[in-house]
């Protein structure tokens, strides 16, 4: 009696313990609402190039459907005509505003939206917003690929296929299927080993959530009891939906693929709702052994297994004969394993890394937050394509760069920002997130090479309590140089191995001359250069050595972007922004975006450097940016490190700054300079982002004087001076010499030797 009581008590306690685990962890894991991240909403306004922003595609992605006629157009539908688009915009909630549902007409003129009017009032509207697109959701801390679905997001035949092969009595059993267990036990007895499992979907789900994959009697008992408890506490629909999102369906690089939504995207390049019967059967077929039965590994085996599922579906009356035979004969076309162009997962990871700074990470995983980001969905897609195709082209050009091991392949990243506000608009941290989640835009620090040089020129051009070290009319000395360092003499060399004698400041930067820049840096001093870099937004350690001037420091692309954004915005450093608003499940705004700016550089100096960099893009190492007809203001700088291991390209327009890095994770030569390896990626991105016509101008701020100088001497050009070019100066720094009778004499270094060399050079030219 006592033994029975004790036995009952112990069993009861064990079951109660398991129930606690189920309710605490199952509730927490299964029924939590994921946090969703949205892109910035698209704004439509008169003057906008609707083709450029891919209006029709955007509306289709947002689920707007084309209606046959304009009568009683319901929200979410549109009618596209030759010169007007009528669209009934859906209402949506945004943290700071509630956008009402609006029936509007967009009049199109050429490629532009000419006018927006609301119906039926006919009131002209200045702008309307489309609801923001969802970029992704956070479901757990691991790197899992998961496209969450509800039962309404999947076709019935997918559920049927899974039930047919995995658990045909799911609707009726209480969590454990004794009939199936008996059948499996018999089969295993006959085989003399464990060949077949008797687990129901609920048991599989429990195993995934709480238990290890070991096959012991004790674990099976736990699994069965927990499955019964889950069925007692939750309805079949919830369990099935959870299973569809949880089930492991293969591996892509280091990333586990979970859920039918993600599997549909991976195997067929489509959303789950669009899966055919044959495709659904394949997904159901591979559940048993996702990697062994993967169509990428053995297509024939996968087809055999798929057909078995289709047979089961027919035999169980889930599909008819006609559907069965059509699906069975359907050829299996799996998607090429290419990364999704709209993939924003590097960005989502960045958001997740930044969020704990403002919000509790635990809540992030379970509270159903809505995170409104700054990402521009269109630019993100363009950036992804530009990077991946650019790298593929490099490999095609030089097959030695190609490797069969995806984890060792040529890599790259691209990141873009709005310089005035610091909003990150696009970010692709690597070639394929599925293969490597390491974000090269924000987590990698690589030697930056010549993209660091503008900081040297800023330090030299900036008038800090006196005359600047140089003006844009100065000359630099590009003759052999030796600088003593604690580790021995340092002798910088140019990329072409030549020395170019006396060169103008413009020429030195446009041709990215190392020796002239190193000599200038030696004069300005590394401490001062580092101080300038810090002010502009560089936070990584900067070694105070002479080679710092040539970019010997290891920096991340996001730092470089921030620094160049400061130049682009006239010396005002923006804080990088990735989140606009953070809203909890109850709709309460937890965090509002706050743009932050700090004036860190005199606008005049910022303009002079912008002008120099514009010259680099016009005539210098970055002149290739114009080769495909990109028009408008561009300032840019190339950077190629020793042995062509790191290729950098940084460029900005008045409204966009973007950085491209190309290289191997384990540094080795890419075999080409930045102008060949990184520039084309930047060019394609900006061309497609702007439509080829860049808006705005680089305008000189007050305090900048524009005068003509003699390019040979740097002297002010008066009437009678044979040659002249326009140059910019901070007020009070104009050359004192005049042409035709004088020259500036402002030779960097100003040593007698240099001076005589300069005279000699000048004599030859005159």
């Amino acid at each position, binding site marked *: 009696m006592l033994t029975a009581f004790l036995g009952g008590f112990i069993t009861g306690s064990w079951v109660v313990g398991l129930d606690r685990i189920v309710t605490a962890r199952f509730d927490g894991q299964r029924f939590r609402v994921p946090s969703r991240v949205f892109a*910035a909403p698209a*704004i439509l*306004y*008169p*003057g*906008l190039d609707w083709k450029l922003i891919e209006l029709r595609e955007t509306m289709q992605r947002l689920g707007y459907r084309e209606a046959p006629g304009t009568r009683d157009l319901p929200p979410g539908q549109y009618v596209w005509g030759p010169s007007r688009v009528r669209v009934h915009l859906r209402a949506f909630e*945004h943290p*700071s*505003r509630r956008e009402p549902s609006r029936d509007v007409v967009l009049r199109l003129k050429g490629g*532009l939206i000419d006018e927006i009017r609301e119906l039926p009032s006919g009131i002209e509207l*200045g*702008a309307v*917003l489309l609801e923001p697109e969802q970029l992704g959701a956070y479901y757990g801390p691991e790197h899992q690929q998961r496209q969450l679905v509800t039962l309404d997001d999947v076709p019935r035949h997918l559920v049927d296929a899974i039930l047919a092969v995995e658990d045909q009595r799911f609707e009726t059993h209480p969590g454990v299927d004794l009939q199936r267990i008996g059948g499996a036990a018999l089969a295993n007895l006959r085989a003399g080993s464990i060949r077949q499992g008797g687990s129901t979907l609920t048991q599989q789900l429990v195993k995934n959530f709480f238990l290890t994959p070991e096959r012991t009697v004790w674990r099976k008992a736990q699994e069965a009891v927990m499955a019964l408890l889950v069925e007692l506490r939750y309805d079949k629909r919830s369990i099935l939906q959870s299973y569809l999102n949880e089930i492991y369906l293969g591996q892509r690089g280091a990333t586990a693929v979970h859920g039918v939504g993600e599997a549909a995207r991976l195997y067929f390049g489509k959303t789950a709702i669009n899966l055919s019967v044959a495709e659904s059967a394949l997904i159901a077929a591979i559940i048993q052994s996702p990697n062994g039965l993967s169509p990428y590994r053995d297509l024939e085996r996968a087809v055999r297994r798929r057909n078995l599922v289709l047979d089961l579906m027919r035999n169980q009356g889930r599909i008819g004969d006609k559907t069965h035979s059509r699906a069975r004969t359907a050829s299996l076309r799996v998607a090429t394993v290419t990364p999704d162009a709209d993939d924003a997962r590097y960005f989502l990871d960045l958001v997740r890394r930044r969020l704990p700074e403002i919000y509790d990470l635990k809540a992030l995983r379970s509270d159903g937050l809505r995170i409104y980001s700054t990402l521009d969905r269109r630019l993100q897609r363009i950036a992804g394509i530009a990077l991946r195709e650019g790298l593929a082209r490099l490999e095609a050009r030089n097959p030695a760069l190609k490797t069969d091991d995806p984890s060792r392949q040529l890599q790259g990243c691209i990141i873009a920002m*709005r*310089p*005035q*506000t610091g*909003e990150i608009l696009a970010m692709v941290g690597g070639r394929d997130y599925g293969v490597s989640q390491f974000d090269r835009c924000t987590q990698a620090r690589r030697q930056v090479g010549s993209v660091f040089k503008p900081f040297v020129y800023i330090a030299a051009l900036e008038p800090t309590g006196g005359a600047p070290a140089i003006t844009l009319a100065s000359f630099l000395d590009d003759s052999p140089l030796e600088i003593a360092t604690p580790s021995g003499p340092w002798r910088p060399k140019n990329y072409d191995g030549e020395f170019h004698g006396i060169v103008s400041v413009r020429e030195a930067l446009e041709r990215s001359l190392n020796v002239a820049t190193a000599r200038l840096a030696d004069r300005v001093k590394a401490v001062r250069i580092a101080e300038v870099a810090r002010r502009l937004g560089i936070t990584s350690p900067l070694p105070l050595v002479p080679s710092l001037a040539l970019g010997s420091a290891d920096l991340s692309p996001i730092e470089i972007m921030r620094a160049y954004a400061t130049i682009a*915005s*006239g*010396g*005002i450093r923006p804080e990088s922004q990735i989140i*606009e608003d953070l809203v909890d499940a109850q709709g309460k705004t937890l965090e*509002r*975006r*706050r*743009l*932050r*700016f*700090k*004036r860190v550089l005199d*606008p005049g100096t910022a*303009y002079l450097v912008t002008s120099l960099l514009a010259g680099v893009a016009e005539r210098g190492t970055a002149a290739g940016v114009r080769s495909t007809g990109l028009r408008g203001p561009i300032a840019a700088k190339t950077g190629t490190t020793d042995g062509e291991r790191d290729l950098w390209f940084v460029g900005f327009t*008045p*409204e966009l700054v973007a950085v491209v890095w190309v290289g191997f994770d384990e540094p080795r030569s890419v075999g080409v300079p930045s102008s060949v390896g990184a520039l084309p990626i930047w060019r394609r991105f900006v061309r497609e982002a702007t439509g080829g016509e860049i*808006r*705005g101008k680089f*305008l*000189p*701020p*007050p305090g900048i004087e524009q005068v003509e100088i003699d390019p040979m001497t740097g002297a002010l050009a008066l009437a009678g001076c044979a040659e002249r070019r326009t140059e910019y100066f901070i007020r009070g720094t104009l050359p004192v010499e005049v042409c035709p009778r004088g020259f500036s004499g402002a030779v960097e270094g100003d040593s007698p030797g240099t001076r005589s060399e300069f005279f000699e050079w000048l004599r030859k030219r005159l």
Partner: protein
Amino acid sequence: MHRVLGGLLMGTLAAVSAVGCVSRGPRGESGPLRISEVERQGDGARRASTRLVLSGLDFDVESESGRALSEYERAIQIDPTNPFAYLAVARFYADLFLPGRSLEYLDQAELLLESQGLSSPRVEAHLAGLRGLAHLATGRFREAETLLGRARKLAPSVWSDARLSPDELR
């Protein structure tokens, strides 16, 4: 004697200048700048952006500050180089007694106005006044007094009460 004459002259000039300022209509070309005046200037993006700024000011007038800020942010999203959008946000934060934020936007507005050749005494009044308010809020009274005095002098019709309402900027 010279000093007295000089003082008289200066005083007269100041009075004339002040009367001149007061007598000019606030909506006139020579009164303090109103953003509605530049509504039709610039390309499509600038015009759309400025319209959103005006819409934001309308919300500001109605004390719908969340909606107002949202309109200003969208204005910046459409045209990040629109100085009037930053000016409106600087005013918005000045009203909320957030001088640090106000100054940041003011810096950006000033830089963009200057580099786009849009600086003039008509807009300078607002820049000086808002900067003065920010200094006032941070306890830098001397600078505040100078700047607000300058704003009052440039645009007495607006800045005599040491405040720039959304309606006055609109």
